[in-house]
């Protein structure tokens, strides 16, 4: 019995090795945008792929500004890197750390691949709002006009949870005025990843203006949480890299995922000092995560 088991195990490992060896014929280029966040994701992803059997020699980390090897599988970290993905003819590609707003603004995605958007599923975000901030029901958000149709389709998700969801279109120039009009009719401000709306120049205004009116901001990144949001729902670099690595392995196995993919793993962050200053009592991050799962 035990020799039969050993034989079966050997056959299985040989088969796996062949699959990986066949896949590894395709080099993987991880193209990353400037900045520590993209660099950190690219590094963790490279290690994750190595751990899954992709030979280190077949993984290259490339800055967006550098040229790509021909015919490699492209993993693009950040919107700038996405532009390096060939429109057609690539053996496969994966995008990550890209907001849905940027994807919605593209006329079409390149073939043979998928983008793992930064945006958490709206269903999950609204559940967090419902659990973490009971008694508040008017959720406001700003978005680029390209995201508006998709977001307005999601209003039913809010209604199902007894929430009102107001989304206003804004640009980098009109954001301050639109925010001014939106805040008086909101008791929660939802920040969705969109570089035209939320960036290092605009976040101080968004946080200070909402804080002044006692409106908590629910954000999409740890950095935003640290900046002054009360809650954040996001995927850590390790979580994102795990999911992206699975998508790369699917390409190597010839079963690429296509289109837009939402994060599966997530983390909840709580800024209890800001919460306390706003007079809001929050459950712990672990408690919120457990309830969302």
């Amino acid at each position, binding site marked *: 019995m035990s020799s039969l088991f050993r034989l079966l195990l050997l056959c299985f490992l040989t088969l796996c090795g062949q699959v990986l060896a066949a896949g590894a014929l395709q080099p993987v280029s991880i193209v990353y*945008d400037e*900045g*520590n*966040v*993209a660099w950190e994701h690219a590094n963790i992803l490279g290690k994750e792929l190595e751990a899954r059997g992709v030979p280190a020699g077949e993984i290259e980390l490339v800055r967006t500004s550098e040229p790509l090897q021909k015919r490699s599988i492209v993993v693009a970290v*950040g*919107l*700038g890197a996405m532009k390096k993905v060939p429109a057609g003819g690539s053996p496969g590609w994966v995008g990550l*750390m890209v*907001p849905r707003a940027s994807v919605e603004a593209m006329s079409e995605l390149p073939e043979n691949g998928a983008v793992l958007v*930064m945006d958490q599923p709206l269903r999950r975000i609204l559940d967090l709002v419902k659990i973490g901030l009971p*008694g508040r029901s008017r959720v406001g958000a700003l978005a680029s006009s390209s995201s508006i149709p998709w977001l307005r389709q999601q209003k039913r998700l809010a209604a199902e949870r007894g929430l009102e969801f107001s989304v206003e279109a804004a640009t*980098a*120039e009109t954001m*301050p005025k639109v925010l001014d009009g939106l805040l008086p009719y909101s008791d929660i401000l939802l920040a969705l*990843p*969109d*570089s*035209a709306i*939320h*960036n*290092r*120049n*605009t*976040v*101080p*205004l968004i*946080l*200070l*203006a909402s*804080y*002044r009116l006692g409106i908590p901001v629910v954000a999409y*990144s740890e*950095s*935003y949480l*640290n*900046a*002054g949001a009360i809650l954040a729902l996001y995927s850590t670099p390790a979580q994102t890299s795990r999911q992206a690595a699975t998508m790369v392995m699917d390409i190597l196995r010839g079963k690429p995922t296509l289109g837009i993919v939402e994060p599966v793993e997530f983390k909840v962050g709580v*800024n*209890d*000092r*800001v919460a*306390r*200053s*706003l*007079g809001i*009592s929050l459950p712990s991050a672990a408690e919120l995560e457990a309830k969302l799962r």
Partner: protein
Amino acid sequence: MKLPNYSKFSLAMIWISSLTLAQPVLGQSELDELPVVLSASRLKQSPLRAPAGVTVIDRETIIATGARQIVDVLRLVPGVVVQYPRGYWAAVGMRGFGEFFGRNLQVLIDGVSVYNPMWSGVDWSEIPLSPYDIERIEVIRGPNAATYGANAFFGVVNIITRDPSTEPAFQATIASGDRGILDGNLRGSIKGDIWRWRASVGRRSDDGFDERPDSHRLEFASLRGDAQFNGQDSLLFNFSMTEKDAQDGFYHLANDLTSSQRPHDTASHTWTLQTRWARAESVDDEWWVQYYARQTSAWDHIDVKFGPFLLPTDSDYDSRRQGVEAQQTHRFNPDLRAAWGGEWREDNVRSYNYFHTMDWIKTHLWRGFGNVEWKFAPEWTLHPSVMIEDNSMTGRSSASRWAVSWEPIQNHVFRIGTANSRLTPPILHKYANWYYQITPAVKVPVYISSGLVGDAAIRSNEIAYAFEFPSLHLSGDMRWFKERVTGLVRAKGTDLVNSDDANTRGGDLSLNWRPWESTHLRLAVARTIVDSLVDPADRNYGASAPKHTATLHWRQQLPGNYEFSATHYRVGPSTWLEPDQTVPAYGRLDLRLAKKFSLGRERGEVALVTQNANSPTLDFKEKAVVNTYQRRTTFLQLSVEY
């Protein structure tokens, strides 16, 4: 008497307009590291869980009161009494002990004290801010020297100005109406990748009380820059300057050559500089270091007849203050947070009239403090604070505050606390050599200080309850306090000595209620009893505090972008520490009706304000002169921004 118009203001307006032509630079990536915006130093104190009684007044409320200057807004704080000995000079009292300089409160603008080292106290009329410059005002009711240093005796007024990132690109406001009111303010802001700038110029003027020659005109300008170099490091730069022209004296002494109180002109000039570098790694881990400097020069000249001689006299003085301060906040674990820091400060004053030397009189101060917030059990928090100061005038002293709070039910906090504070005498009291030399042989002394005067002290005990009913949009707090004040300064012959003691007790109540989305109500009620421990006939501390004060503020949004607000103040009778300065009980009703409008990309608001809508109000009495606000002082406010 009216003062001539001034043209520097219009030049500054052109400069501000040109600033706003620059376009903001936007368009970053969501992968950028974001700066820590709501750091410990930017967060407001939560009245619910603060270790002391705190009243927070936000910008909407400030504007809705129709206040022309910040000091008027303090009437919304329970127990605070604002009186005007001159039309431009406000004296603020929190527990009575009324006097011209209102020395018992520490006042900070963005963390820099505007306390005048010459006289102590604050010249509120010289604060270079319009109500539109303010983000919020936090008032700590009760002594708090353990955090803010000596002179935070009866309370602390913390004025936080707007961050340029929340400012409109351009804003112009003007107010004009009865009593010669003519106020204006122009503000512009620009936002770049690293720096955000705000410039503001303004003026404020009126004719003062009918009974007094107290017209005044203040012109002010300020420049604030905030740089965010990366996610952690930021730099704040603040510079402001004011020029004030005012009149002083009494009309009935106009022909009395022997009096220095004949109507005459005075002037003063102040500038303040602040630069602060902060590193905030998270909301609970921040440290900053700042340098500040402030200079005031005041001119007050009049010729006075002494016997056969007509002598030129003056009350001129220069004061300078500079200091370096550092502070760190750190969270050791979820239940233990601390803040500690230190400061070095130097004060210089110069006045021939008061010191009979043209040398600068220098004092310096070192201090270090530590505050801890320790949640030692699930419902219990301990707040110990200690400050040690070494002042070259009065030596080493310490102040402390201990508070324990208990939150048995969420949003219902009971607190018990004790605190002691000190009140450093002004440099004038310590080193006064104030006399008039009539002839080489005849000298008329006013104050000749022996230099023995030292700190006054206060020990305060309080019990408080703060609450919030989120579903009812109702919050508030109430507290009962008992204090012992020792070493109050008074004149003994021509010297100044610490001689008087008094006990105070009382309570206050604040309520904030938003019954509907469009309705805001604030109520502030206080009762203060002062028991003088010296002969009241000699010095009536007991009568110096109005036993009751009450303020009700109602702000109502109306259809059609209208907003109505009404603020009623009720103040019991009080007598200042000088004889004959009795003010009977009064009620004052201020009304404001505003309409917001939009003109394409410009937005604006026009408002009609009526102060004292109900009846004439006797504000202050000095000798034979009674300062009276006549019924209905009305003015129009217009604000436009884009």
